[in-house]
């Protein structure tokens, strides 16, 4: 068994920042990640990092834009923390050597992004995430943080108290991809989940193949509620064939969207008369799909994004990476022709419920980055707000887990007596297929002894993996996964309706039932990706269900969540967060109110117009 003070699961932006922070506080810190850290998906982020750095801008303006962008479903304490801490963190990155783009006077450049009242998106070309990831990995090397790379964390070692709020997390169980060994990692102070997004729930996504939402699913099954999962962000500009992202920076620099008739539809069809292409992402995604659905799309599938008029010099200086992506993945030269784009799944606004210090309702268990929901993005994330979220909340989680004295969080977590319970009419039974699920927290009463909890979870994982490997016949994960992704893309996409959501739930149920028969064909213990993908597929199924249940229950239109039957935001009933907890296999829906009271003001919900 390995033992450290703080164990960070995931080696991307949030994980690295958390590990560096914990290490700075003197904690013996390790990162356990299924990829090598530099392979993490943070590297694919392109656009930039929002932070109020300049005169004329302020953290209050950043907070206001974020609240408005969220369609008033963000919590003020979380949003204000993000806006306040971001400038220091961006400066910090610069001090660590991050190669930001520069102005003539040598200061870091900022550019406009959708939904921002000030051009506060700091960037490094159109490859900001790559530089952020590598800069932070370099600092992790400098700090001598131990990295267990290609170790896949498959379960959390949590005590089995009846009430999740009484449970404690003592470590994780991980599978060494290279050798097939399953081992326990005991965390004396805390476990931080920083496992990134769940894009693989969908078929057309900007997310990496590794983004299977492992952290969400593990926390969910251990008893932590998932929050606001129905809010899935679709990015308006992804390449049609692959889902590769074309940064919002293109529109930020002045890129224009055209339909098949050559109309600048954001204005000409009145989707956003003031901001046009720079309206927020949900607005632009719906506009594009409406164009396609009304027959004004190109090849009935996509629209054009044109940046030619920006000129070669500006494109090469600020968007060079976009030229390479359009060329390599679509065969289009962005300097001489417009690029085809359509909406694609991009970001999960919801996630593991945490407070401003990254803590969940289970003691010793933290989450940060995309897999967490503090919540700062509410029902729609502004472009450029994901990277500050990683560093701000990654750092806070690292500090808190390492034992630093921090201000008590204002956001509460977990199921409480005054939670409003929710109801949703489902066509099939959601949740685990069998009651004798092995997905519950460590059972057997080894409550007092942390080592015992870890050892017992290791034993259960060994048995589970053994069963998957020894089964000689059954279904393969790939077919189950593919059908699920297709159904989600068809039914739980940008446009949603009750029948589609119910169909998705039926398909998810079928996936669960088929998964009972899953087996791993590859008998090898060496680098068995068949096994890894099989375990990941279970996580995808749980997340697809959480997203769809939340979406079916929320009968209003807010942010990224568009419902055909409900075309209005209904603040009187729905200014509240959706929470879903696993309850040992039986998903339970409840709600908690949004916190609109900030430090100096209360945010009043207003009509969102761009």
């Amino acid at each position, binding site marked *: 068994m390995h033992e450290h003070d703080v164990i960070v699961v995931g080696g991307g932006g949030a994980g690295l920042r958390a590990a560096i922070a914990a290490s700075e506080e003197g904690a013996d810190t390790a990162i356990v990640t299924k990829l090598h850290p530099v392979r993490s998906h943070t590297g694919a982020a392109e656009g930039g990092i929002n932070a109020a750095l300049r005169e004329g801008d302020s953290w209050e303006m950043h907070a206001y834009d974020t609240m408005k962008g969220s369609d008033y479903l963000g919590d003020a304490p979380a949003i204000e923390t993000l806006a306040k801490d971001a400038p220091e963190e961006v400066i910090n990155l610069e001090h660590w050597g991050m190669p930001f783009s520069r102005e003539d006077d040598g200061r870091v450049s900022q550019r406009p992004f959708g939904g921002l009242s000030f051009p506060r998106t700091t960037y490094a070309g159109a490859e900001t995430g790559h530089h952020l990831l590598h800069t932070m990995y370099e600092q992790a090397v400098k700090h001598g943080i131990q990295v267990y790379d290609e170790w896949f964390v498959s379960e959390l070692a949590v005590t089995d108290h009846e009430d999740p709020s009484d449970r404690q997390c003592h470590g994780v169980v991980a599978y060494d991809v290279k050798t097939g060994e399953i081992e326990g990692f005991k965390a004396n102070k805390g476990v931080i989940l920083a496992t990134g997004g769940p894009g693989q729930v969908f078929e057309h996504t900007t997310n990496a193949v590794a983004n299977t939402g492992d952290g969400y699913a593990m926390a969910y099954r251990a008893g932590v509620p998932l929050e606001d999962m129905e809010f899935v962000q679709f990015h308006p500009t992804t390449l049609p064939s692959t889902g590769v992202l074309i940064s919002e920076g293109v529109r930020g620099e002045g890129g224009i969207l055209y339909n098949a008739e050559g109309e600048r539809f954001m204005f000409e069809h009145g989707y956003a008369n003031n901001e046009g292409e720079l309206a927020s992402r949900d607005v632009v995604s719906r506009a594009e799909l409406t164009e396609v659905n009304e027959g004004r799309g190109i090849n009935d599938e996509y629209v054009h994004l044109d940046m030619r008029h920006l000129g070669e010099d500006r494109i090469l200086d600020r968007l060079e990476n976009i030229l390479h992506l359009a060329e390599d993945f679509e065969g289009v030269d962005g300097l001489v022709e417009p690029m085809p784009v359509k909406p694609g799944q991009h970001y999960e606004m919801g996630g593991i419920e945490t407070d401003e210090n990254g803590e969940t309702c289970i003691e010793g268990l933290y989450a940060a980055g995309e897999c967490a929901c503090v919540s700062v993005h509410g029902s729609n994330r502004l472009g450029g707000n994901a990277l500050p979220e990683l560093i701000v909340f990654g750092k806070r989680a690292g500090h808190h887990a390492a034992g630093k004295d921090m201000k008590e969080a204002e956001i509460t977590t977990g199921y409480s007596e005054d939670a409003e319970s929710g109801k949703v009419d489902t066509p099939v039974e959601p949740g685990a297929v069998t009651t004798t699920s092995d997905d519950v927290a460590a059972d057997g009463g080894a409550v007092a002894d942390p080592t015992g909890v870890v050892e017992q979870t290791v034993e259960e994982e060994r048995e589970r993996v053994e069963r998957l490997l020894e089964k000689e016949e059954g279904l393969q994960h*790939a077919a189950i996964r593919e059908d699920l992704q297709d159904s989600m893309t068809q039914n739980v996409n940008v446009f949603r309706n009750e029948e589609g959501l119910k169909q998705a739930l039926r398909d998810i149920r079928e996936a669960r039932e088929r998964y009972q028969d899953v087996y791993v064909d590859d008998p090898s213990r060496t680098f068995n990706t068949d096994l890894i993908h099989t375990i990941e597929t279970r996580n995808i199924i749980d997340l697809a269900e959480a997203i769809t249940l939340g979406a079916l229950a929320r009968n209003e239109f807010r942010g990224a969540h568009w419902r055909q039957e409900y075309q209005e935001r209904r603040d009187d009933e729905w200014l509240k967060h959706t929470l879903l907890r696993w309850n040992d296999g039986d998903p339970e829906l409840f709600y908690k109110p949004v916190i609109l009271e900030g430090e100096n003001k209360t945010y009043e919900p207003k009509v969102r117009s761009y």
Partner: protein
Amino acid sequence: MSTQVSETEAETEAETESKPHQERRMSEKAARREAADRERLAREQLEAAESTVHLKVFRYDPEVEGKQEPRFDDFHVPYEKGMTVLDALMFARDHYDSSLTFRHSCRQAVCGSDAMFVNGSQRLCCKTQLGDLQEPVRVEPLPHQDVVKDLVVDMQHFYDQMESVEPYFQSDEFPEGEEQRQTRENREKIKMSTRCIWCGACMSSCNIAAGDNEYLGPAAINKAYRFYMDDREEADLEEHRLRILEQEHGVWRCQTQFSCTEVCPKDIPLTEHIQELKREAVKSNLKFW
């Protein structure tokens, strides 16, 4: 939401005994049917495709009998314009042989995990169009690295070399509460070097690295270049960085064969960077002579 569906308690003993067995048989049958359906679907897709691609893929697994002897497997996959080598490998894995093993993640040329040896050259599979390659397309693991299984190589030596050049910013004096200034020219100077995604293609293509296990290699030297040329790092660190680079297995080993530059998927002028550092080393020694 209601509770779990539980089995009815009224079942007779005989039923509970025979049921698991029957259920298992049924589910095995269903599984076989599904596997057959899936194969048939793949075959139909293959037949319906306007064209197909023939891949010859290197296979090896140290612990599975019948795979311990390295061999090539043939896969035929349906081809569509725009398809990459990675797409074809994924199709082969998901439809024909789930044990086919390779690293991949972002499929957009930033994670660097799917560098392989394709038709005799180091390439990132995700950005290599099948349409640009001659058939059969031969896919092998990166040369000069130990093969773990199939197309997966051991990257540890590569990571060790990267980390041996102290790849992190070492300054510790900063302006209070604001960024350091850097000229556009200086950022431009280091820009290409900062694009490295640690894929290992360059190291694998380098003859010198193949013969000298201690040679830092092009990627690590490029990483050192990125810090050496960055004006934000204080001048007294330059000498420290040059010492690492000037060692016996450092920059002087490079014989300017340009193979690293040729294969780099991010177009980093690696050979040029190495030569610039050689010049810096000479200049710095001249100072002391």
